[in-house]
């Protein structure tokens, strides 16, 4: 069947060879043939090629492994979300380009939802940018507003992409760790706090921005109003931007409230707030996110966007808009997915915590998000025979995958070079998993000590 095509392309190739005499001439005259290949990577990506996910998603791809590693729901998205996408597939014009900075019906829906949440007017066309996931929003924000000579404060542990993105923009990451209050005995994510004096010391005239992530990945901390005020005061004092990654904004558990730092006095004008459809609707594979902020900041993100990928997929944006309208209308109703998902996840969180405790592990109960970090040092697993160069938690996770068939993510992947020692006894579990997955994890954890 490919005979025809072979002739087709071979005809082209045969008649399109470089003249042999020219080729030998050019080899004689240009040094390039004997020189090593000079086309290396640009400086901006030097050292940014390795990535914890590339390493661990490969290892955990084996279906016999219970995968609690990557933050990937294996529960189904709500049926109306899938149905909206099915409806959209039938509409011709929705298969073609839409507005670059965000599909009109989506930015309008987002502005309505967030106007309600923030208590302020949000212009759908100037104050919002739709991006390829929250990841794309982080990239657009950093590329738009950060450059060589700037410093960016990153709170450890951090979602791993913050550091390479800041570096790719030519800036310097400045780390500050969350520290455990109770002498290392942590029962809750609320035990992990910033030292205000230490934080204040990190700010200087070069500080362009601080990246805030609340609810926090991986610890699950939900920053309180008082904690946010400390950060806000410093931002205002030093005229610094705040990049607020709030992808888990709806996933807060009883007794906690998600507060948007942009709603604090003096902060709207210096904050870009980032959200995610993937985390809001359990559709990580839709890769839609958004940046919301004042026009004079968002316009620069829009310039980056129009020079990087220009527009996001239309059908997914339309379906997402429809899903948002459905939930916007019931934001006073407990059945709204924004609230029902967090209730569902809270019981999974509690189950996960119980299982881990029964196995002799010390989980840190998260106040938000769908991750739980666990201190594995109590198990005293001797891994000294494994690869010396890797931190303890990397070795532990690899050992656990191989011998227990359970995967997680090592916490030192989320730390800067100075703090790896502090966090290498922790690993991160993801609990946005269906019951059968958690059942399988339960079997492994119950049998942990029997080997």
């Amino acid at each position, binding site marked *: 069947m*490919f005979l*025809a095509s072979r002739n087709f*392309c071979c005809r*082209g*190739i045969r008649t*399109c*060879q*470089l003249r042999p005499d020219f*080729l030998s001439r*050019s080899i004689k005259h*240009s040094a*390039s043939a004997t020189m090593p290949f*000079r*086309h290396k*990577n*640009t400086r*901006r*990506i030097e050292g*940014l*090629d390795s990535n914890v*996910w*590339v390493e661990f998603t490969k290892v955990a791809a084996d279906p016999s492994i219970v995968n609690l590693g990557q933050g*990937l*729901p294996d529960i*189904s998205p709500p049926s109306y979300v*899938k149905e909206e*996408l*099915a409806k959209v*597939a039938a509409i*011709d014009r929705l*298969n*073609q*380009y*839409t507005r*670059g900075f965000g599909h009109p019906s989506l930015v309008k829906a987002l502005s309505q939802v967030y106007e309600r949440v923030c208590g302020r007017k949000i212009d759908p066309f100037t104050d919002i940018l739709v991006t*390829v996931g929250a*990841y794309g929003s982080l990239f657009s924000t950093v*590329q738009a507003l950060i*450059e060589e000579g700037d410093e960016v404060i990153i709170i450890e542990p951090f979602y791993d992409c913050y550091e*390479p993105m800041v570096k*790719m923009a030519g800036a310097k990451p400045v780390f500050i760790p969350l520290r455990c209050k109770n002498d290392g005995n942590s029962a809750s994510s609320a035990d992990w706090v910033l030292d205000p004096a230490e934080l204040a010391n990190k700010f200087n005239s070069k500080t362009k921005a601080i990246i805030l992530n609340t609810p926090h990945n991986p610890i699950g901390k939900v920053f309180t109003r008082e904690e946010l005020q400390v950060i806000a005061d410093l931002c*205002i004092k030093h005229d610094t*931007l705040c990049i607020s990654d709030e992808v888990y904004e709806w996933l807060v558990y009883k007794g906690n409230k998600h507060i948007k730092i942009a709603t604090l006095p*003096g902060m709207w*004008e210096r904050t870009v707030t980032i959200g995610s459809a993937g985390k809001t609707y359990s559709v*990580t*594979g*839709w890769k839609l996110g958004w940046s919301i902020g004042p026009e*004079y900041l968002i316009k*620069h993100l829009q*310039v980056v966007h*129009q*020079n*990087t*990928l220009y527009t*996001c*997929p*239309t*059908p*997914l944006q339309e379906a997402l808009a429809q899903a948002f309208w459905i939930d916007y209308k019931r934001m006073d109703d407990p059945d709204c997915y924004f609230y029902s998902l967090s209730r569902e996840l809270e019981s999974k969180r509690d189950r996960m915590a119980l299982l881990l405790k029964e196995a002799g592990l010390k989980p840190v109960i998260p106040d938000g998000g769908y991750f739980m970090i666990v201190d594995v040092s109590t198990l005293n697993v001797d891994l000294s025979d494994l690869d010396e160069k890797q931190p303890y938690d990397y070795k532990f996770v690899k050992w656990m995958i191989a011998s227990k068939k359970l995967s997680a993510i090592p916490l030192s992947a989320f730390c800067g070079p100075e703090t790896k020692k502090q966090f290498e006894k922790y690993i991160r579990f993801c609990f946005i998993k269906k019951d059968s997955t958690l059942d399988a994890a339960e079997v492994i954890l119950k049998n942990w000590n029997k080997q």
Partner: protein
Amino acid sequence: ILSLSLQAKMSRPVQARRLEGIDKNIWVEFVKLAATYSKVNLGQGFPDFPAPDFLTEALTRALSGGNHMLHQYTRAFGHPPLVKVLAQFFEKLLGRDLDPMTNVMVTVGAYQALFCCFQALVEEGDEVIIIEPFFDCYEPMVKMAGGTPVFVPLRPNPPKDGKLMSSADWQLDPAELASKFSERTKAIVLNSPNNPLGKVFSCRELGLIAELCVKHDVLCISDEVYEWLVYDGKQHIRIASLQGMWDRTVIVGSAGKTFSATGWKVGWVVGPDRLLQHLRTVHQNSVYHCATIAQEAVAQGFQRELTLYGKPESYFVQLPKELQQKRDWLIQSLNAVGMKPIIPEGTYFLVADISQFKSDVPDVPNSDEPYDYRFTKWMVKNKGLAAIPLSAFYSEAHKNNYTNFIRFCFAKEDATLKAANDILQKWKQEKTS
């Protein structure tokens, strides 16, 4: 309250210098104009006919299949079924073995593929040769990467017999092209079939470019998004298949153009691992993953085309056939009213000389806008017909070189093209009466 918010604003310059000079964008303005005024939109390049059934059915099947993991992250560098079928396809077309994991990467449209190329391979101190007229994003992308664009024009050589020009009559001057290569030249961007002219670079022309790339050890970023849209029995030749070129070429492709679904934003790069590894680094630090379900459906589209390759039912045979008819119709239409079209060998664009319509839009001396910009804005507002000025596809320095040409997109339903014809006929009548 007002003064409080002014105080709260950042007091120092907030945006990064990499954005300097790249904030303007023709599409932002012209898409808005078309949305506001046009009755017939032959401006922005997208089909107004539906995407093929087999593609939308693939999406529907994926959604109804019960595999809800299609709504979750897939492999970052490309959904396995898609990279596998792309590798299979391009193996045949290029006549070489391809590893789907290292020789192919999926991107958010060809646009993001281009972005990855420039960010991965171009930096301050590098020159990048861009052939004019060019798809407008190349210049700002090179600048954003810190590189210096170096322009070389296609020059029109009108046929002496007074016949309509073809895009083949727009050619590079070999000596002029050679003079643009210096020791700072990092890459040349090739776009064949070319947007906006529709030129399909010939074997000889590609050979010329290839010789210079090999001689100067320069990379080639080959934007081939319109690879299937070639007419009159012409062949699209892939420069990467020329001797000495595979190792230095990144090929960019687009599902949006291949399958008439521009809104899906699925694109790809094909090339040697030692170049693609750097694009992967950029990709994993910028968007990381592309939407899973769109990739799944595009993979199925390619599977279908793999089994039908070369057959009359193949979409890659049917689409150019249909578009050629539309091209010919529009050419006739424009010719009849006195706009002189340049017959495109490929793509779904054509450029026409509007010199005979200049009296409708008086020239304004010392205007900061090139003539064709003013003409197209006047035309969409007063005639309801949207097109794009050719100078949008030229560098700042050369915007006034060709100001009597506008670009039309003919990937439109017959009814749309008829409506365009009606507008043009009426316009001509108004001129003669």
